[in-house]
């Protein structure tokens, strides 16, 4: 067994590990803010730590985190998916309309499948039509959102299946929602793709230098098609969990999910320049946003402060990440996209 770990592999793994440590220093912002806010909550809102409350926060964080995990991989490849907001509504609506009375797991599968199909539409427009992902998914954001509103006539579709309701409501050990376990599985799969499959190397290559990736023979069309299908499928999954949480599906049920997911990815320490990213950072940031929104309610301030808090977190996390990684003081950080 140890023969498999010959010296070359070990050296390569160690080298990889070092580069990861260097690049992933950006997570600092998310860590520091998480710790500060936890201390703050411990002092001023001790009921934050009730099992019921933690369950709710974990659930919010998971719904954001599942979509944001997909967005992390996309941003690592230098792409965006703005249409996730619309897919969050449309995929569960289609699933409930087609299979509302069928067994729960089937509803979830159809929602994931619908998300994947919508993602494939994005992917085909981008790869076959040669359109930049940002604007292509901006177009499908309008289009998918409109389709969702049209097929439901703007009304809510109610959930009958107890299985779907349990996705967000059910808990393990009275604390952890199933949605969080799903998030862990999703992250494990994304990690496998990124670190253990060829696809992960292609994704990072495409994100750091797309011309070089093209010249070195990577099938970029396949990579981006895969990415958008994956992002769509994950969004379909997050959408059906949110639907279970709200016990009904509306086309506009996740307003600003796209921007929130991008915010989580960025606060987590993934650079918008592409090439590298951190799933753990994204999950930390999703938890941070959910915790702050919940904490503000517990402290008893007006819920409108949430919007201010979101912006402040974004700025603080990035500034902290930059200062800690030394990027702020280096001249190399002057490129701003």
């Amino acid at each position, binding site marked *: 067994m140890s023969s498999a770990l010959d010296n070359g592999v070990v050296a390569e793994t160690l080298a990889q590990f070092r580069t990861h440590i260097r690049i992933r220093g950006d997570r600092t912002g998310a860590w520091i803010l998480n710790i500060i806010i936890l201390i703050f909550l411990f002092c001023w809102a001790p009921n934050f730590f009730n099992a019921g409350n933690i369950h709710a926060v974990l659930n919010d964080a998971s719904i954001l985190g599942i979509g944001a995990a997909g967005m992390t991989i996309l941003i690592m*490849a230098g*792409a965006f998916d703005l249409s996730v907001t619309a897919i969050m509504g449309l995929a569960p609506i289609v699933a409930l309309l087609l299979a509302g009375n069928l067994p729960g797991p089937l509803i979830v599968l159809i929602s994931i499948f619908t998300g994947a199909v919508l993602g494939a539409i994005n992917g085909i*427009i*981008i*790869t076959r*039509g*040669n*359109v*930049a*992902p*940002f*604007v*292509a998914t*901006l*177009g*499908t954001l*309008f*289009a*998918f*959102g*409109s*389709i969702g*509103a*049209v097929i439901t*006539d*703007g009304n809510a579709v109610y959930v009958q299946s107890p299985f779907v309701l349990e996705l967000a409501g059910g808990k393990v050990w009275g604390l952890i929602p199933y949605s969080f376990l799903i998030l862990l599985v999703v992250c494990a799969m994304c990690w496998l793709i990124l670190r253990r499959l060829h696809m992960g190397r292609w994704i990072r290559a*495409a994100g750091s230098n*797309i011309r070089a990736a*093209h010249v070195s023979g990577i099938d*970029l*069309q396949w990579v*981006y098609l895969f990415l958008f299908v994956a992002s769509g499928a994950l969004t379909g999954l997050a959408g059906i969990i949110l639907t279970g949480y709200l016990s009904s599906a509306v086309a506009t049920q996740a307003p600003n999910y796209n*921007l929130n997911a*991008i*915010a989580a990815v*960025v606060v987590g320490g993934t650079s*918008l320049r*592409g090439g590298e990213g951190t799933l753990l950072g994204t999950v930390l940031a999703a938890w941070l946003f959910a915790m702050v929104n919940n904490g503000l309610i517990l402290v008893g301030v*007006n819920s*409108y*402060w*949430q*919007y*201010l*808090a*979101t*912006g*402040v977190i*974004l*700025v603080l996390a*990035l*500034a902290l990440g*930059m200062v800690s990684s030394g*990027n*702020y003081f280096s001249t190399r*950080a*002057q*490129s*701003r*996209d």
Partner: protein
Amino acid sequence: MLKKLLSSESAASIIALVGVVIVFTLINNRFLTRLNIEGIIVSASISAIVGLGMTLIIAMRALDLSVGSIMGFSAISGALLLSHDVPLAFVVAVALAVGGALGFINSQLINLLRLPSFVATLATLSMILGGELLITDGATVTIRNSMYSKLVIGRLFGVVPWAAVIAAVVFAIVWIVFHWTPFGRHIAAIGGDLRAAAGAGINVKAVTMGVFTLAGVLAALAGLMVAGMLQNADSTVGVGAELTAIAVVVVGGTSLMGGRGNLIGTVCAAFLLASVKAGLNIANVSSKYEGLVFGGILIIALMADGLRRGARRKGMLVV
């Protein structure tokens, strides 16, 4: 002449605009009535004003996601000042200054904290919206000043809506700034290649400050016009306007890659969007289809453009 027009970058939006007008006129001949055309002009003027600011930003290879929130914030500050009987000219000046100040804050987040514009304005999008809600407590501020709404939907010489006059003035100013001044050339230079521009001695921070402040002022102007049209202002003014503005700019033929800005295309695309909305309304189609039609036009325009370019670089993707 026609050939030159077809090969220009605004060709897609002009063709789509003409096509949409013809289709809706055939569907319902009420499309070309005076009332409907005026509605289109007012609505297109407002989105063109936001879009022109966004065109400059995108030409600099940046994005401003906060314009929607700036629209709402300036509309609310204007409406609040009006409800305290402040003179109209002063109200307009203050609201525009507020927009400019918010744009200036954006630019300083980018310059001083070195945040990418996307992230900096994503943060201010959220913060300004929070500010709007805290100021109004979620309520709607009614505007009772009749003079104010006339400034938007009233007509100059009884013919041209004032909104169109304002938009024309804004277009002229932005055109002159972008095409005829060193500042405008610097915007395009920074968008084309930031390092080269900085190396050539362009003051990148000053240009960034100027462009974002200008975009903030223009967004504030559009917000004031929306409030004048609605006769009230609340935090829903401008929600989602940033993405619509980006879509308008892109349909107008400006690439997100930066370096170039197509001001005429942006205005055409604003008219296209407004015509689609008005046309669906007149054809008795639910407004729920608006997104499908506009999203479809956006994708088709981009794919037509992408396929034209794709012949040259097969397999390479634009990301």
